[in-house]
């Protein structure tokens, strides 16, 4: 490809719309031709320039936006409490809590029963019910 044809393909090459064969021809030419390479680099810089100093928001606009964001997202006590409840919990903390819940669930009924009945009730329960009570003895 000569320079005329190559330069006609530069915009398509930059936007990756050329075929594989065309891309290979363009790249091969750019390696060998500094004039076309300079043209391509100028085109690329111009298209991808993003912005010049003229194309950024003014400092006043930046400060205005910053103030708006700061006001909108300022931490408040209510937001802090809400975030504490919705914070992500590390795995080890979650596992510890889960283990505590399981332990409490398994021991809970036993403990609750013991607390409810008290020591005397425990002593009464230790009486051997197979032994006849005084009331059950009949004296003939």
């Amino acid at each position: 490809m000569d320079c005329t044809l190559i330069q006609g393909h530069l915009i398509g090459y930059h936007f990756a719309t050329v075929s594989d064969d065309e891309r290979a021809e363009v790249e091969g030419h750019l390696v060998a031709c500094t004039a076309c390479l300079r043209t391509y680099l100028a085109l690329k810089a111009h298209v991808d320039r993003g912005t010049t100093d003229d194309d950024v928001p003014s400092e006043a606009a930046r400060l205005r936006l910053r103030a708006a964001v700061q006001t909108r997202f300022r931490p408040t006590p209510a937001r802090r409490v809400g975030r504490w409840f919705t914070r992500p919990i590390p795995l080890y903390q979650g596992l510890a809590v889960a283990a505590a819940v399981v332990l409490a669930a398994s021991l809970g009924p036993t403990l609750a029963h013991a607390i409810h009945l008290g020591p005397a009730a425990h002593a009464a329960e230790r009486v051997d019910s197979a032994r006849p009570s005084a009331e059950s003895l009949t004296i003939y």
Partner: protein
Amino acid sequence: MDSDEALYARVKRGDMLAFDDLYARYAPRLFGFLRPQLPTRADAEDVFHESLLATLENDEVAFDRGSFRTWLYRIARNLVLNRARSQGRGENAMARLAPLVDDPPPAADERAAQGQMLRALDGAVARLPSPLSEIYHLRSSGLSYEEMALVLGIPLGTLKSRMNQMVNVLREELKPWTAR
């Protein structure tokens, strides 16, 4: 370096240093995307302001459905379209660049020729119809094809087709400056 999504979360917790980082990351590119599509600099600053604030405030932003960047550009694009509908677009952008369209024929000097070609490119871009102009500016802002498809809400195949159309139009417009 924190990701955009991490900075977004920190800003929502009131971390203004994170906002400063996010702003520095996106101000040039996003403003560069907006400025050519809006009649005045003040309009572009307003839309830039609204875009960033709306993205931060929007409860629907979820990064399983697109990156922070795609959300930001999608919202910015919608704001531009809303302004265009209410104000009318195109004429002011063309008026801004119209004097450049009647430049004299290319000079022999390479740098001068490049400058004229690039000015011709700006004029050609200003004359692009809206769907193609959007694609040019999104691509110039550094978005990938996939991100552009998400922002525009079109299939990737449709995007590539429009990209081809855009390039063909620009290539035709630049012929006098490349076919020497």
